[in-house]
């Protein structure tokens, strides 16, 4: 593994560069195809509202995939992610327009662990609501 970030250069509290990820209906169709998750709540408004959702929502796994990019872009090597877990707390609602929704992700080093590993805590927000809870990654640094 070849992380670009050195363990010695990182302290608990170090912030990773925050990023925002846009998501439109077209994004969701593309993700459905790539992931094989064709649940209609991610593309069919009528179906989504019938099961009690406000509108079409993004795949939780899409949001999870975007959030970890803050970590993989920072560390350079995506293979340096040793553990990654999230709780899906609120759906990312994706309106049927060309603007869609925005997933805003920030992260910081929460703890330095043994063996040059650190725990990174992530915060993902859409429309002012936290969409992921307990979002944490353990990363192997150089």
């Amino acid at each position, binding site marked *: *593994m*070849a992380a670009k970030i050195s363990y010695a250069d990182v302290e608990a509290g170090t912030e990773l560069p925050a990023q925002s*990820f846009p998501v439109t209906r077209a*994004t969701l169709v*593309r*993700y459905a*195809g*790539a*992931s*094989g*998750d064709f649940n209609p709540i991610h593309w069919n408004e009528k179906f989504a509202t019938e099961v009690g959702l406000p509108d079409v929502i993004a795949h*939780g*796994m*899409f949001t*999870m*995939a*975007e959030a*970890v*990019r803050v970590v*993989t*872009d920072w560390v*350079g*090597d*995506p*293979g340096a*992610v*040793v*553990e*990654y*877990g*999230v*709780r*899906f707390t609120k759906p990312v609602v994706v309106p049927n327009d060309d603007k869609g929704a925005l997933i805003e992700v920030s992260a910081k080093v929460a703890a330095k662990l043994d063996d040059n590993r650190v725990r990174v805590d992530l915060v993902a927000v859409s429309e002012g609501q936290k969409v992921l809870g*307990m979002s944490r990654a353990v990363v192997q640094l150089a």
Partner: protein
Amino acid sequence: MALDQSFVGRTYPPTAPYEVGREKIREFAAAVGDENPAYTDREAARALGHSDVIAPPTFAFTITFKAAEQVTQDPQLGLDYSRVVHREQRFAYVRPLRAGDRLSVTSTIEAIKSLAGNDILDVRGDVHDESGELVVTAWTKLVARAAEEA
């Protein structure tokens, strides 16, 4: 109706091998807008110490989620999948998935709980490569929401 607790600890037979394709990795990385060259450029992946292009961390779910259908569609378990939501997901990686891997998943029911009429199901998927080495473990928590009173 609450799910049968006797299913806790049940392990399902390993799935037929899934071969990780480099174009499938490319498609997945493009779908999440991730331009990290480790996903598409073998030389860039090698420069990071990998033998071939690797898959994004959450790619593993596309394999474990299909494998977990053995559990979620098990007629004996009787989960109402139309009411299921994905509540939590966690991965522990031994190494990243890479192009050419032939992976088999063994799904195990780790826990079944009933809370306010909701059924909560914890499924662990152990992903092994062709040589039998563990590559990644995925923990998936699903909740089948209580049906409304008729």
